[in-house]
């Protein structure tokens, strides 16, 4: 990691530890840079805030993935995520406006093709879950914490107990969704 500064290493370490406060420091540090990019590319203040938050969330998720390695300076990496996030947002807006310059083939090939599904169904169903179940599922699938950490954070006896609990919670969520929605509800209406 020749291009990585000592500060970048510390930030990555803090993210690995699950320290969310590091994102606040990064927000303040890169706010001007990312906001300027958004302003210079037809964005406004709200867009800049959204892009900043999405960029930091993406950083969090990526760094917490197993085998993550930062090969460039953190600022470069963050700016790349921000640019990509804002481009996706602009593309989405153009599609909504009917500027169908992206071909059907491009959409099919796009890695974001999964966004065509309506995940708000899952989020609504999660509201019906117990708080502990909700926490366990988010800690495991979003934050990528190991079962030992999840067990400690949720007052469970061991990692295996946490694993069993996670399985139970996921089954519970599936039951809620299948009870309240049909398969056709899982997809967004893309005709508009």
């Amino acid at each position, binding site marked *: 990691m020749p291009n990585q500064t000592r500060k970048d290493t510390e930030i990555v370490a803090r993210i690995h530890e699950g320290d969310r406060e590091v994102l606040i420091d990064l927000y303040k540090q890169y706010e001007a840079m990312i906001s300027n990019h958004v302003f210079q590319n037809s964005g406004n203040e709200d867009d800049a805030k959204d892009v900043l*938050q999405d960029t930091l969330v993406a950083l969090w998720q990526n760094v917490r993935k197993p085998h993550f390695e930062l090969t460039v300076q953190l600022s470069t990496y963050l700016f790349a995520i921000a640019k990509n996030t804002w481009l996706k947002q602009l593309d989405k807006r153009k599609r909504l406006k009917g500027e169908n310059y992206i071909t059907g083939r491009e959409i099919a090939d796009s890695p974001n093709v999964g966004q065509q599904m309506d995940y708000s169904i899952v989020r609504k169903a999660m509201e019906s879950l117990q708080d502990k179940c909700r926490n366990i599922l988010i800690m495991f699938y979003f934050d990528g914490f190991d079962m030992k950490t999840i067990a400690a954070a949720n007052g469970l006896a061991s990692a295996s107990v946490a694993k069993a609990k996670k399985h139970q919670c996921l089954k519970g969520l599936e039951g809620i*969704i299948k009870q309240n929605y049909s398969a056709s509800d899982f997809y967004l209406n893309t005709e508009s």
Partner: protein
Amino acid sequence: MPTMNLNDPRIESYLNEEMSEVDAQNFEREAKESPEVWDHIQFQQFMIQGIREEGAAELKDFIANRITEEVEDDFTSRNIWWSVAATLIILAVGLGVTYKFQWLDGEAKSVVAKNDVNQGSEKSALQKLEPQLSESDESKSKSATADTFLMPEIIADNEESSDAMVEAPMNEDVYASPLKDDARSDRGRQMDGLDKNKEIRSVNVAPFIVSAIELNSNPRSKVAVAENKAENSKPNAKRKMESSILSDTIAGYTGKSRVAQNAEGDEISSNSNSSPSFKKAKLEGTKQFLITLSEQSGITKPQVFMGGQANGKINLTLWNAGTSDILIFHLGDEYYLQLGNDFYYLPLIPGSTANLKPVADRAILEKLKQ
């Protein structure tokens, strides 16, 4: 023939992205051969992505809330400093205004006190003079109240007016209006000639007018002065001499006539042979002084400041006179000042402050004491 079922342990590894890319591609190919397994995997992926979106939304909320808190904290802390600064400014302005009002109030009281003194002093003067008048003979009384020799006013020892006048600082701004009292506009100029670090206090005696007594040739004027002194040299008697004019000729006309004037300058006794030009000369030769008494702490020697001339009267401020029993004599080319029993040379240099030098010349002293 599909070989995979819903209990295949690889499904969990695939969903948790724990497989290598090659293993994942091989697994997908195999899983798609079983529609039930593939549907199950797709539904599981749908839920997992939904959970991740919920997690992302939660993290975004956390960031947004924390940033908002920090901005509010910054704003609050900045507001606190602004509030502190604003409070200090308001306090400073308030103190300044209060001080200014107290100052003005003091001056106003001083002016009111002076006016009261001017208006009420006749009454109090009469009250105080009553026993004196009863003791003095009738002729003296008549002489004192006659046009030729106006009764000086005695200022009542009013504590309130005294305090007000002592507290009142002298400032040209306060005296911006010339009013009727020319001495006021002179106060600022008086300050120029004095040590401003010293505490300056006005004396609770309103400015009064004293006419110079000509001693060059006319014995009558001296008699009148003597009468005047007898009436007004009582200890602690503070007075205002509205006008005391017993004028005689100026040096150039000595012996040719004797003329007495009242305050308006009207002749009350004149030589029938006097010419108009002679009369004019007499008026010019009679100097009138508007005297203000003041004190300055730290200085014991009497000082005099000569201000400008207004309404034919020379403004004089006497510092540390120690008495209000004051007479001015004109002898030869010099003017002399009598403070109580002491005689001083009176230098008349406009715009300057000077220490009063005692008269040492015996011959002059004798003439003055006559």
